[in-house]
């Protein structure tokens, strides 16, 4: 008798409390994306700077970054997650996913940052140096603001891409938005409702980013 009841409850319909479960999944997406985008952007700016100043870095670092940019993220995730334990370095799904996502972001941001630095005319940098500014003052007060304005739209694209690509970390078992939804779909057999809600969640996460950068872009217009 009791086994029958359990069998019936195994598939139960979508409940309001499941929204809370999805929200927690969204929290996972936010955490992993926020870390990947912020750390990956800082790292990517350093890489981009290295690419712009040194031909040697361009050859070595550039090809490493090309690998991260060219190999599908899902393969990078699975390889990294499954190979580290072989080397005796077990990592959890969260750590593995975060690390891979950071380097993936950094590889994309590096090219954006290099583009930003190269968007600043060398004659403008000469002008800054001729005023007695140091190399780093030129970088901080001329190259960064001018370059950032040039590549903000491209960076926004990367950030939104990473936010959505973070869904792939679900393959490692880390419970973020997509993984949470898959678990619910399995239980409720109501993919339509749940995936729609999940889509709305992703939209709610992405929209503020694109809105915010669009406003920055407008405020930063040269006028």
């Amino acid at each position, binding site marked *: 008798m009791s086994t029958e009841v359990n069998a019936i409850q195994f598939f139960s319909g979508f409940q309001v409390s499941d929204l809370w479960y999805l929200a927690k999944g969204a929290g996972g997406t936010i955490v992993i994306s926020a870390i990947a985008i912020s750390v990956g952007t800082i790292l990517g700016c350093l890489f981009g700077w290295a690419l712009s100043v040194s031909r040697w870095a361009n050859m070595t670092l550039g090809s490493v970054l090309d690998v991260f940019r060219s190999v599908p993220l899902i393969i990078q995730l699975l390889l990294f997650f499954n190979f580290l334990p072989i080397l005796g370095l077990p990592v959890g799904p969260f750590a593995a996913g975060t690390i891979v996502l950071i380097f993936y972001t950094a590889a994309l941001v590096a090219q954006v940052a290099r583009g930003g630095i190269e968007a600043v*005319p060398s*004659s*403008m940098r*000469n*002008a*800054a*140096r*001729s*005023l*007695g*500014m*140091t190399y780093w*003052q030129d970088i901080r*007060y*001329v190259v960064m*603001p*001018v370059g950032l*304005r040039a590549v903000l739209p491209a960076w926004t694209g990367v950030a939104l891409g990473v936010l959505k690509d973070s869904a792939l970390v679900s393959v490692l078992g880390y419970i973020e938005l997509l993984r949470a939804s898959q678990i619910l779909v399995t239980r409720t057999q109501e993919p339509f409702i749940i995936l729609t809600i999940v889509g709305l969640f992703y939209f709610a996460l992405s929209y503020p980013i694109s809105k915010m950068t669009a406003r920055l872009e407008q405020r*930063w217009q*040269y*006028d």
Partner: protein
Amino acid sequence: MIELKSVEKKFGDITVLKGIDLSVEKGEVISVIGASGSGKSTMLYCINALEKIQSGQIIVDGIDVHADQTNLNELRRHIGMVFQQWNSFPHLSVLDNVALAPKLVLGKSKDEAYSIAEKQLKHVGLGDKLDVYPTRMSGGQQQRLAIARALAMEPDYMLFDEVTSALDPELVGEVLDTLRLLRDDGMTMIVVTHEISFARDVSDRVAFFHQGVIEEIGQAQQLINDPQKERTQQFLSNVR
């Protein structure tokens, strides 16, 4: 005083400056004329070490510019430079464009830097543009802004690299007038230019560059009106 002694500069295999000797006294205005590619602009870039030299010496107020121990950031405070492209900082207002270097390099307070900037901008006739962004201004105005920006460092010398070449013809006059103003202030200037009549009327001496050497140098009026060397005569008859 700026002194160049047998300065040689190469870009790869190409020798751009083939032993330049030149000295510029305090208060003197020297114009440098010559065909494109003759090395005039390169010489200016070498004087404040935006380009390295391969041999020879450049000495500014007793300091060997290209010696390893020379602090270039310190040296460049004393040598203002204005470029063919005006290179306004597009993200800063006109006032901030000029105030930036005094703040960063000279360590002036914000108020001091702004008052220096305002003074220099008024001097070049941009007193009514302080809060404007440079992209809203004409090329001539932006070039005057570049001059004010260099002057705000209170340099002892000013280098001008074809500052009117990228301007529409009707805007050339206002920039040349600003240069005249500086001459009247007693500024020491090296002016690389294609404006022959300006060179004749405003400078003390004129140097004619040909393929990396100073072919002829002399008093401005005399060199322009009565050049001695055949190449100088040829160049001047071509540009007139």
